[in-house]
């Protein structure tokens, strides 16, 4: 990165802009706090869950599928970082760099295939599992 080029773009507008945005948000929140009416309703202290009285805490365990997504993201987003670095310099690197990234991509694709087959990319309910669970439930009856 050429140092002189950086200097031609003044950064202060960005800071001013950011400052204005932040204060704008602050003003909006502050104004609505000041202007808003005060009141208390009977059900206002309960979470709204479709009109049904809330049961238990919302700090529940959820499907590990969400963690899986997080991991997938971590894996592939970090790969993006490498592709990004290549993309910016790929003209200098030429076919040699292309080959390198191709190898990298092949690895990515292999990982993707593996995950696909392992069911990491299946987000919906798994029919087979449900069926198995259903059969297990039925067994004691027989």
């Amino acid at each position, binding site marked *: 990165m050429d140092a002189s080029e950086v200097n031609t773009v003044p950064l202060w507008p960005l800071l001013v802009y950011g400052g204005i945005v932040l204060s704008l948000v602050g003003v909006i929140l502050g104004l609505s706090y000041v202007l*808003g009416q005060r009141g208390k309703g009977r059900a206002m202290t309960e979470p709204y869950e479709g009109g049904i009285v809330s049961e238990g805490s919302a700090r529940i365990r959820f499907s590990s599928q969400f963690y899986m997504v997080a991991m*997938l993201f971590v894996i592939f987003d970090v790969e993006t970082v490498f592709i990004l670095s290549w993309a910016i310099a*790929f003209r200098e690197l030429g076919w040699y760099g292309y080959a390198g990234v191709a190898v990298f991509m092949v690895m990515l694709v292999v990982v993707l295939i593996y995950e696909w087959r392992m069911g990491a990319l299946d987000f919906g309910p798994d029919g087979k599992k449900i069926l198995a669970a259903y059969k297990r439930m039925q067994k004691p009856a027989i």
Partner: protein
Amino acid sequence: METAAPNYLLIIGGVLFVMLNVAAALIWVERRMLALWQDRYGPNRAGPFGLLIVAADSIKLFFKQDWVPPFSDKPVFVLAPAIVVVSVLLSFVVIPFAPGIIVADLNIGLLFFLAMSSMGAYSIILGGWASNNKYSLLGAMRGAAQMISYEVFMGLALMGVVLMAGSFNLREIVEAQRGLWFFIPQILGFVIFFIAGIAETHRLPFDIPEAESELIAGFHSEYSGMKFGMFFIGEYMGITLISCMLVTLYFGGWLGPDFLPPIVWFIIKVVAFLMIFILLRASMPRPRYDQLMEFGWKILLPLTLVNLMITAAVVLWLEG
């Protein structure tokens, strides 16, 4: 830079003013357009053609009770809507509306955009989690999963443009499209970016985190008043942002025949995309969560990789 010393204060003020108003106007436009397509009136009481409905709405929102639920995690609850507004507004910094009309001509503009757009996921997950409401939490989890997934494809799809332009600077990317707008060579990238953009803004039809019919507004169930308003306006600004990005990256930005000034070309293109967004809302059903995710990971991701390799090969080949 064409002008010797652009008046930055003017630009800053202009961008902020226009964007906030565009978002506000969009609310009215959308409601009117939807009404038109659905063969009903839409807002028509406040002002001519119901034009003042937005103003009325926002005044109402200001005066509504500033309710922070006692069961919530309060600081986070307040912070969440602020994040969405700040991150989207900050993203506009790097968009070259026209030659010289850009707040900060960063040479990592594209990365700045990506960074800011991933901030959006925070607002959803923090808001949903702080609400301490099961539906909100579910919405937040889904939203986060959706947003971070599509973040990946979005970033990878953009790489095609970067390969062709050889820069992360959005102004240079626009300049690089002088001969040919990138949506022709990068049609695949464009489609992926477009889809990912919708998902990123959790805009209909991909409004899974807030799906009214399943999750009763999802992550912002517990929000009201201006805090809800900020989520609301944030969404419209997000649409605008994605439209601007689409135009900048794939449709030549301000470029256009000389008979109109560049800024006008830019506005025309953006408005066209805004209309498409609204049209999409009117015409598409919402997919299931798992369908959306599987579509992303199983179809879009391989496609982006293919797109990337082909683009790079072609570029290298053309340049000898």
